[in-house]
């Protein structure tokens, strides 16, 4: 299949970025907005065409989706190791192309309304394009190093976009935090790559993932501290993924990242970048599955499950709607990880894998929708906090409807998209590990609860006094809402199991009615509870909060993780490490050097008495010298 035009998909945003970046000052905002949108539009069309071509025309050869690779050497390390740049076409990358394109396009359109009148409008679109480019590069990566490169690039564009309001201290801090935390995770990723490269002699996904390949067959050849070195490598790589996907305990940057403009949160911190971690694990899935019988994979599963639960609990108590959404994102990502973690490889075994990808797809749609909805609300009331909202449904109907759809979707209520993907996940987990299954179900309930908590809080509940009447957002913002709402409704009916599976063969997925029923019931319970607590204003919620007391406090303070990290960085690293080192350098190392110099000068000061000016002393020294030399060299040293 011809991949030439796929190359254009990442390149167009890059061109747009350079265009807008370099002529930042000279381009009129309106124009730059159009340029950005147009660029993305082209990319989107191409992606969809590529998807059509791949899934329905060329992709499948005797029942198995082929992998198409186009690559060229970018840099040589040694005769064997080298970094390639290229495009890697297989089901998940094509699927990701579609996801990224659609969401990104929607966000572009949305931003034209949301960011209107902001100075740095052009800059904003430049950064968005940069991000889209990096994200495309990431999903199309052909080898570990290429993915790492774009991994870093999405990281930096996220940094730039979070810090977009750079005059706000909090935004700057958040951006810094996001970058450094993910950077720390990437350290693990990098070391993992080094290990892979050293022990397998290649970075290529094709070679690494080949079930008959050397990497997978001889994983046991070298071991370190009881585990195969490759397992260590995979674990380290997963740390990288966990950092990007805000898995516990590297999640702390995600809530703060909400300092960025809302469209950014929708695009980067809900739909696309944060799923990169999931994508990474999926990309290396065969290795995770086969090496050491999926030891690393189990870690993925448990981390995912825990994060899902952890985040869901915190989400209940947050009052900043964007933060609620942030934690919900984290929780859903946990779901995806969990699904991957419990998945098998071939045939129906690979249900979890499929489900995870499916959920990634649907989640992208409805979470983006949620964020954009929240954005339009915030745009209307100029605040992030629930207390400033309420009863908005009559002011902004479209937002209301779309938000409701999204909420239903995420709560897994049929027939919305979330229902199908979540159901698949739960089935997969159920087949693998009952405990995790219950966790999953519980989280599903919590999800429904907190989601409707904010839904009711925003659109129903008592009306707060608005200094100026909120109004529905302009078409440029509502159109994306509607479109995404549509996707959240229809998305579920895509027969994912035919397209995206671990062994690329595809299988017949069918609803597991009892489990589905359970999930739905739990979801509904959550909604009902939320309805009881928050539909009409009542002090039930507060009473409940008081009932839990300290526990509630903990959760609303996110279990003090920020505090812990702050302690480690500020108190330990800065005060206990950096400061002493700086002191040591100035006083000990530099001191020694100065000491050498000063002591020389001092010595010369001390011995000046020798030159006494008395000719007789000179004569004495003269004779003494002679005598000493004589004694030493005539008697002592004479051989």
């Amino acid at each position, binding site marked *: 299949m011809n991949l030439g035009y796929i190359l254009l998909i990442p390149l167009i945003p890059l061109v747009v970025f350079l265009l807008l970046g370099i002529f930042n000052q000279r381009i009129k905002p309106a124009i730059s907005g159009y340029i950005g949108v147009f660029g993305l539009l082209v990319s989107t069309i191409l992606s969809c065409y590529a998807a059509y071509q791949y899934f329905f025309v060329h992709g499948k050869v005797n029942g198995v989706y082929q992998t198409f690779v186009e690559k060229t050497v970018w*840099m*040589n390390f040694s005769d064997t190791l080298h970094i390639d740049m290229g495009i890697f076409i297989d089901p998940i990358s094509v699927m990701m192309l579609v996801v990224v394109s659609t969401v990104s396009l929607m966000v572009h359109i949305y931003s034209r309304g949301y960011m209107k009148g902001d100075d740095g409008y052009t800059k904003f679109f430049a950064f968005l394009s940069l991000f889209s480019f990096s994200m495309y590069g990431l999903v199309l990566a052909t080898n570990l190093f290429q993915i790492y490169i774009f991994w870093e*690039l999405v990281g930096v564009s996220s940094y730039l976009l979070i810090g977009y309001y*750079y005059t706000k201290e909090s935004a700057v801090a958040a951006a810094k935090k996001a970058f450094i935390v993910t950077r720390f995770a990437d350290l693990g990723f990098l070391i993992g790559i*080094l290990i892979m*490269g050293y022990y397998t002699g290649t970075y290529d996904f094709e070679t690494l993932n080949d079930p008959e390949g050397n990497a997978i067959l001889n994983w046991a050849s070298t071991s370190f501290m009881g585990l195969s070195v490759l397992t260590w490598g995979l674990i380290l790589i997963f740390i990288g993924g966990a950092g990007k996907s805000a898995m516990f305990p590297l999640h702390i940057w995600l809530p703060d990242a909400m300092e960025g403009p809302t469209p950014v949160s929708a695009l980067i911190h809900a739909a696309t970048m944060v799923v990169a971690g999931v994508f990474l694990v999926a990309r290396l899935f065969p290795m995770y599955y086969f090496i050491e019988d999926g030891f690393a994979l189990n870690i993925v599963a448990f981390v995912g499950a825990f994060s899902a639960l952890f985040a869901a609990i915190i989400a209940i108590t947050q009052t900043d709607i964007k933060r609620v959404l942030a934690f919900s994102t984290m929780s859903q990502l946990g779901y995806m990880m969990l699904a991957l973690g419990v998945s098998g490889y071939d045939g129906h075994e690979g249900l979890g894998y499929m489900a995870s990808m499916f959920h990634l797809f649907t989640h992208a749609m409805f979470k983006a929708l949620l964020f954009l909805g929240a954005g339009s609300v915030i745009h209307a009331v100029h605040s992030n906090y629930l207390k400033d909202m309420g009863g908005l449904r009559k002011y902004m109907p479209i937002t209301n409807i779309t938000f409701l759809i999204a909420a239903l979707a995420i709560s897994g209520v049929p027939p919305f998209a979330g229902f199908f993907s979540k159901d698949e996940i739960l089935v997969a987990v159920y087949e693998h590990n009952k405990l995790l299954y219950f966790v999953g179900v519980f989280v599903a309930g919590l999800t429904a609860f907190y989601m409707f908590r904010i839904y009711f809080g925003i659109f129903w509940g008592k009306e707060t006094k608005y200094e100026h009447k909120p109004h529905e957002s302009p078409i440029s913002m509502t159109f994306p809402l509607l479109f995404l709402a549509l996707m959240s409704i229809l998305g579920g009916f895509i027969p994912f199991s035919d397209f995206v599976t671990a062994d690329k063969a595809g299988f017949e997925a069918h609803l597991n009615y009892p489990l589905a029923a359970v999930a739905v019931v739990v979801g509904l319970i959550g909604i009902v509870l939320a309805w009881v607590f928050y539909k009409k204003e009542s002090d039930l919620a507060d009473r409940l909060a008081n009932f839990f007391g300290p526990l509630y406090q903990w959760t609303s303070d996110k279990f003090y993780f920020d505090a812990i990290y702050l302690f480690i960085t500020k108190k330990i690293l800065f005060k206990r490490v950096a400061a002493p080192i700086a002191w040591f*350098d100035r006083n000990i*190392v*530099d001191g020694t050097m100065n000491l050498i110099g000063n002591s020389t000068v001092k010595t010369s000061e001390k011995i000046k008495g020798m030159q006494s000016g008395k000719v007789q002393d000179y004569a004495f020294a003269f004779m003494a010298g002679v005598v000493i030399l004589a004694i030493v060299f005539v008697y002592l040293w004479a051989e």
Partner: protein
Amino acid sequence: MDILSLFITVPVLTILALVFTKGLRQARIVSMIGSLIQLAMTINLVFAYFKERDINQDIMVFTKDVVWFEQFNIHYAIGVDGISVALLLLTAIVVLAGVFISWKMSDLPKEFFISLIVLSIGVYGFFISLDLFTMFVFFEIAVIPMYLLIGIWGTGPREYAAMKLTLMLMGASAILLVAILGIYFNSNTDGGPLTFNILEIAKVNIPFEVQKLFFPLTFIGFAVIGALFPFHTWSPDGHASAPTAVSMLHAGVLMKLGGYGVFRVAMYLLPEGAQYWSWFFIILAAIGVIYGAFSAIKQTDLKYINAYSSVSHLGLVLFALLMLNKTAWNGAILQSLSHGFMTALFFALIGMIYERTHTRDVRKLGGLLKVIPFISAIYVIAGLASLGLPGFSGFVAEMNIFVGAFEHDDMFYRIVTIVSVSAIVVTAVYILRVVGIMLMGPVKNKAFLSLEKVTWYEQLGILLLLIPIVGMGVAPLWISDMILASLHPFIHGVP
């Protein structure tokens, strides 16, 4: 006049021309033209080199050998391989940028530019010479002008800084002298004549005992100027006191002499000594990498921050050299180049900021992104480049170093590697700290609101440095292959 000797003669002519100039205007024009010619020659050399390579597979090409002191068998022997070509390119660019940056050097301009060019002569000569003696001569020629440059045109405790820098570097070169003599008098173990010629010495195998004795001297002698811990303390003070252009040249080019010398002399002539000692020096280098990064976190003076980051980055160069394999060496050279460009760019920007705000204290600065967007934006880019972001030269170099270092078969080395890799996080911390405090946030000082915009010569200087950084970062293949190809012969001594 062969293509390489021109690299010495053109600057000399420039100096002669400078002697007859009057005032700043003429001086800067003349030196600009001089360094422009030099840059043109370098670019020409790059192409000439590729053409020559196709037909000539010697270790060194464009070689020229003139007997100088017959009794000692001292020759004026010059020649280049891919590595020296790359470093010459670095030098030419940085020098030209330096001239642009010191466009407004009002105090004793003529003398300033003359000393600058003298320094560059030393560097050019060092990179092209194949004879230990001439190499040493050029080394000292490159170092000594620093005293005047810092002492006369510097700021702050300039006399102290200049004296410290000069003495430490000359002390190192003195140690180096002993080592060179030691190598010289053992260069005839296979019965040939004593020689200073590197290529000749490389052919004979110097006895292991001798290598064991002289490798540390050679290594330290060169590594001090490469800011090896704990001999790096001249660099922060020196950089802080030096005028902008000098900091650029010094950090950008002069400190590279260390890595290059270690590679060309210590590693190439004393490979077994290197084997024997690497574990020890690798620890020092690794300490330097981490330690420099951490010290940079606590600094408040921009130049100090940059100086310590240089300690960290150049520690990485020595670290890679000691790993004794091609990939790491390639990384070391690339790191030298990329650090050269980046740190020069940093110092240029710091100079501009200092000129405008009259302070280098980050705590006093803030919100510059709003008032001088161009400079600040470039500063952000430079920062991202130096924390090793893909798409910039730093990433390419560091990846080579880490991959290469990890290729080492000894577990100890790989663990040390992992330790030093963690520096990339610390680097991110101190870079983003500065960016956060200085460029972002609200404008701290009302006076900043009326800062003058960037001027054309400043922009030229910046672009000169930025283009190679991005170029190397986006398309590293040609340069890294050029270096790799030149590394083949050097690997021989290294098991």
